[in-house]
């Protein structure tokens, strides 16, 4: 986001205050500075975007005549510790500048000074101040028209700084995307629309300047006022609030949100959507099978009814072609060639239940985080749900209990995964609640 350094250099400034108060610093010292010369000057970045973000909506920038930005000065105290510039000197310089230039500076908010005094008076002090910050010439082409408009006369020698003085012109100097947001006070995730706004506004710079007031709100009203009207929010705060509300609403929909932060909410949302989709497809399958199976069995002999294995349905259909007259029902059944499969997880504070169903086999995994034996209640539930227990294994693992149960769904039962999982975890939790106080004694 920040190109090669600006043309300014803090060092000469410091020395300037010490040696030559308001004097023009000669160029020789400037070259000894850290920053390379003749590169694009991007002082607004130095202002530090975070401060700009706090601009109030009502803030109005003064005209170009009034506007003097001295980001280098302000940023000196903040930055360049590695450049070994003493903060004291910088502060002194800044204070001096404040005194000199009659600024109604809102230093806290912006980090750069806004000159809100008359148009006429500010031009004189600024050259001096600019001279303090002697900068090597910048190679960036400047809009000369603006120069003539804003800073007559001697200002031409301060070419580099005119970048500073032309906030709506960032697109000219702009090379990185991030930079485009700064003047408008948005964060680095500016959308393209805002960047477009910059560009559009850039073309109309002169108009803006001539109008004398530059709206320094989050949505800088430029010529694209029509576009702004399409947006439902006029302030960034409203937009943020709305976004936060949306996140909260999503959080409410999700059962058992683990953490409260946005990334987790999104991840939980994704998982929940996947789970819901699986459940819907499972239920649809069951409904379809029930519908098919009912009509199917009505017309067939008993032996054929018992075989609900999907792989065999096709064979049965073939056999029953002569008997059945409802060909459409056959089509529906044979379309169910896929195996029924579903998978669900339920987690509670002490328990995790994992239910997987493939065809008619149900695998239930229960992990207990305490040493409370829940196997009895689980088997009771399994009996209650008419599941045929085929295999169980598990036991204590450290402080945990873990069990894996393989069961089969009895024929004709339309149990579905979420029912199993919900019932199991409910029963286990009840058991835990009852057991825990006893254990604590």
């Amino acid at each position: 986001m920040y190109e090669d350094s600006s043309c300014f250099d803090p060092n000469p400034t410091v020395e300037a205050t010490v040696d030559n108060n308001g004097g023009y610093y000669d160029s020789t010292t400037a070259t000894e500075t850290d920053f390379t010369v003749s590169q694009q000057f991007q002082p607004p970045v130095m202002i530090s975007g975070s401060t700009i973000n706090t601009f109030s909506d009502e803030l109005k920038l003064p005209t170009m005549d009034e506007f003097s930005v001295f980001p280098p000065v302000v940023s000196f105290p903040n930055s360049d510790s590695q450049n070994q510039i003493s903060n004291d000197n910088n502060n002194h310089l800044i204070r001096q500048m404040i005194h000199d230039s009659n600024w109604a500076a809102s230093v806290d908010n912006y980090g750069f000074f806004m000159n809100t005094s008359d148009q006429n008076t500010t031009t004189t002090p600024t050259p001096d101040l600019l001279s303090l910050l002697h900068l090597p010439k910048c190679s960036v082409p400047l809009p000369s028209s603006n120069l003539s408009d804003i800073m007559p006369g001697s200002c031409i020698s301060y070419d580099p700084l005119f970048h500073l003085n032309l906030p709506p012109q960032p697109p000219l100097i702009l090379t990185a995307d991030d930079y485009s947001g700064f003047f408008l006070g948005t964060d680095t995730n500016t959308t393209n629309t805002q960047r477009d706004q910059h560009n559009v506004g850039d073309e109309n710079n002169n108009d803006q300047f001539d109008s004398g007031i530059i709206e320094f709100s989050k949505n800088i009203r430029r010529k694209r006022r029509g576009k702004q009207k399409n947006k439902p929010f006029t302030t960034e705060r409203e937009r943020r609030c709305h976004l936060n509300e949306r996140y909260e609403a999503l959080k409410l929909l999700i059962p058992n949100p683990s953490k409260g932060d946005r990334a987790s909410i999104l991840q939980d949302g994704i998982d929940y959507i996947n789970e819901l989709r699986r459940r819907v497809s499972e239920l649809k399958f069951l409904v379809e099978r029930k519908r098919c199976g009912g009509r199917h069995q009505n017309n067939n002999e008993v032996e054929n009814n018992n075989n609900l294995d999907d792989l065999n349905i096709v064979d049965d259909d073939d056999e029953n072609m002569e008997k059945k007259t409802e060909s459409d029902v056959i089509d529906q059944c044979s379309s169910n060639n896929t195996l029924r499969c579903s998978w669900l997880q339920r987690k509670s504070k002490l328990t995790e239940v994992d239910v997987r169903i493939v065809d008619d086999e149900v695998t239930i995994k229960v992990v207990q985080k305490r040493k409370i034996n829940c196997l009895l209640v689980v088997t009771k539930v399994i009996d209650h749900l008419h599941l045929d227990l085929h295999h169980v294994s598990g036991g204590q693992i450290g402080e945990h209990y873990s069990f894996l149960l393989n069961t089969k769904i009895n024929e004709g039962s339309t149990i579905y995964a979420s029912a199993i999982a919900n019932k199991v975890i409910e029963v286990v939790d009840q058991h835990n609640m009852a057991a825990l106080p006893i254990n604590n004694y």
Partner: protein
Amino acid sequence: MGGGNRFQEPVRISRRRQVRKGEEENEVNESFKSPNLEAERRRREKLHGRLMALRSHVPIVTNMTKASIVEDSITYISELQEEVVNLTEKLHEMEEAPLELDEQQQTDQIIKPEHETIDLKEEMKKLGIEENIQLCKIGERKLWLKITTEKKPGIFTKFMEVMRFMGLEIIDITLTTSCGATLICSSVQILQGLCDGDSVDLEQTKEFLLEVMRSNP
């Protein structure tokens, strides 16, 4: 040169970070005093990635803004939830309704389980599997037991009830079924306070277990 030397430091510091756009940028970044710039960037990218993933799961598309992605997913989730409820209700209705139609089938199904149990017993006999209980002590308060019995519905529940009744805590357990028989292997621990390890009468316990297993609910 002094200036050159001063340049070294920001470069050195920035090497720890991903040097993306040159030293100046990093130096200015440090000038912003954001020591966790990289962390913040990663956090933002993670959030953005998850938002895109959410977007890819949701078929509803109104806008590509962050707020609308979240909003669309809210709508979609509500829709899915409704659909689940509807389908569940439908399934329950269907479960009750066909009873009238399939009375014949119902009676047939009732008959069937009995057939099956008879078959299972015969199968067991065919393979020579006999009912059997083995019980032995493997520690001061630990027992090991192995039970071979007929496969019956609810037999495991009975077994667990007996364990609880006798005050035996399960350390690990394995149950398998094959050919109409059930095999339970388990090591259990005698809970404290119930009875002394020595005083457990193995024979008595065995007989008790066998009796329970054979009984019909």
